[in-house]
């Protein structure tokens, strides 16, 4: 079955959301959570799949996320007919009443971090009820010392909690390149533990000075990421519910928006076609 395909909604791609290649949309919670907003964030579109993407659940923090934040996420999901909410495998703060770092960092991959993460994911799932929760692998600039690999850590969170996986293909590509691991092996290992899967695709750039691939969501999806996407679709088969393309800077023109999402759909349809 072909997964639902769409963009993470930005004002710049709103004019093209009725493209025939699009039947899904991702809402970034922090953009939709405008207290003055009167209309639904997805407006009048009737997508097959809508998902809300959050930034501050901070599931690897020692404390569970606040009920207020979880309820606000759920409210936006219900208002927009979303069937799922996702957030990142990382921490953005030390705990309730503490400080916010401004962006998520990977946790130390340890048993203690795993226990806290699983407990928090379970708290989120309980609070969300029938709104499904997916956890995304992040691109990182650094790693804390730990006792297991990221793939093992993520696999165990998925297996222990039953939450879905947002396979951010570009993040796996970036981390593989930057930290010298095999992106395919990572996907293979984690896919085994994932019950349901969404995917993210985006493009960044190679920073010559830092000698690092930066996941900036500012460029077209690179060919290497498309290759990994094909690989993951083959591997995930019927597990993949939706694929979202993210773009936050250096926005393309109309043709660019439409061509990229059509290519993403063509690849998904080909992967789902009978051999």
């Amino acid at each position, binding site marked *: 079955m072909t997964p639902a395909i769409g963009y993470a909604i930005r004002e710049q791609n709103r004019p093209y959301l009725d493209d025939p290649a699009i039947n899904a949309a991702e809402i970034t919670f922090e953009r939709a959570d405008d207290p003055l907003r009167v209309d639904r964030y997805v407006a009048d579109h009737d997508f097959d799949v809508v998902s809300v993407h959050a930034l501050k659940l901070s599931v690897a923090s020692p404390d569970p996320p606040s009920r207020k934040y979880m309820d606000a996420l759920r409210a936006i999901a219900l208002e927009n007919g979303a069937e799922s909410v996702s957030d990142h495998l990382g921490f953005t703060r030390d705990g309730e009443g503490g400080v916010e770092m*401004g962006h998520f960092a990977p946790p130390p991959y340890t048993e203690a971090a795993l226990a806290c993460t699983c407990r928090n994911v379970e708290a989120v799932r309980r609070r969300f009820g029938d709104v499904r929760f997916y956890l995304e692998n992040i691109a990182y600039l*650094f790693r804390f010392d730990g006792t297991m690999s990221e793939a093992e850590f993520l696999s165990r969170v998925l297996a222990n909690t039953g939450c879905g996986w947002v396979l951010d293909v570009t993040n796996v590509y970036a981390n593989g390149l930057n930290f010298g691991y095999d992106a395919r092996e990572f996907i293979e290992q984690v896919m085994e533990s994932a019950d349901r899967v969404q995917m993210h695709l985006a493009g960044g750039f190679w920073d010559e000075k830092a000698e690092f691939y930066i996941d900036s969501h500012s460029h077209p999806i690179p060919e290497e990421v498309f290759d990994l996407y094909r690989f993951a679709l083959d591997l995930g088969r019927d597990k993949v519910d939706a694929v979202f393309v993210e773009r936050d800077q250096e926005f393309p023109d109309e043709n660019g928006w439409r061509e990229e999402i059509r290519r993403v759909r063509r690849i998904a349809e080909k992967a789902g076609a009978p051999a």
Partner: protein
Amino acid sequence: MSPSASTIDDYRAQLRRCAQALAAARPDALAGDVHGAGDAARLKMFTDGNCEKRFEKLQDQLEVLADFADDLDDLLEAYIRAVPLAAYDTGARDGLRFLDWLENRRPLSSEECDACAVLRGRGRVEELAERERLRHVRFQEALSAAEVLLDEWGTNDELRLIVNPIHDWETFRTRAFLEEDDPLPARVAFFPVGNDIRTAVLEPEAEALLRRLAASGPSRLDELARRGAWEREEIAATARDLIETGLAALQ
């Protein structure tokens, strides 16, 4: 086997140390916690990137203050160094916290005070709309229909006037944000129309009607006329002005 309580406590302490160092842009404090020299060097990329994003958000949010505070960028840098983001802080709340910090940092000119009043007025309207979301949405629906109903206002006795539930007041002491003919000091109403926050300096009759309506709830024209000392026509005209401004609607 689950980790022991003391292992979890150690994790809590580790994350507190890490988050506080990264939030305060002190990446050197964590050099020993990460894999190798490359990762340690990139801790600074992480904190630099976060500070830059926070700076840009604050600049964007505090734009009205920039016209009067030449040293705003320096102040923002000092603020970011001194005050870490609080858990769940959004751009808007961070900006309002900056104003509190600024007032304790140096004396403000009268124009700067008015700019702070603009920002605080907007902030309170947003907070109110967040708390009273359903009432906000219902009023805006009524407001969008008010243009049609306005033709019947004064003749259809069933129509009731309702006040925009999301409004607040500030006092401006300079003309920095006022028209030439506005009084000084001026009481300024802040309220949303759709997704925008608008401001208005009201005539005394309009402000009085707004307050009366806020206290009494939805009211028909004859009820308002009975309760007040004004003529029905005067109330009808004042109400019409409030509707056109976005501070009242009909249902």
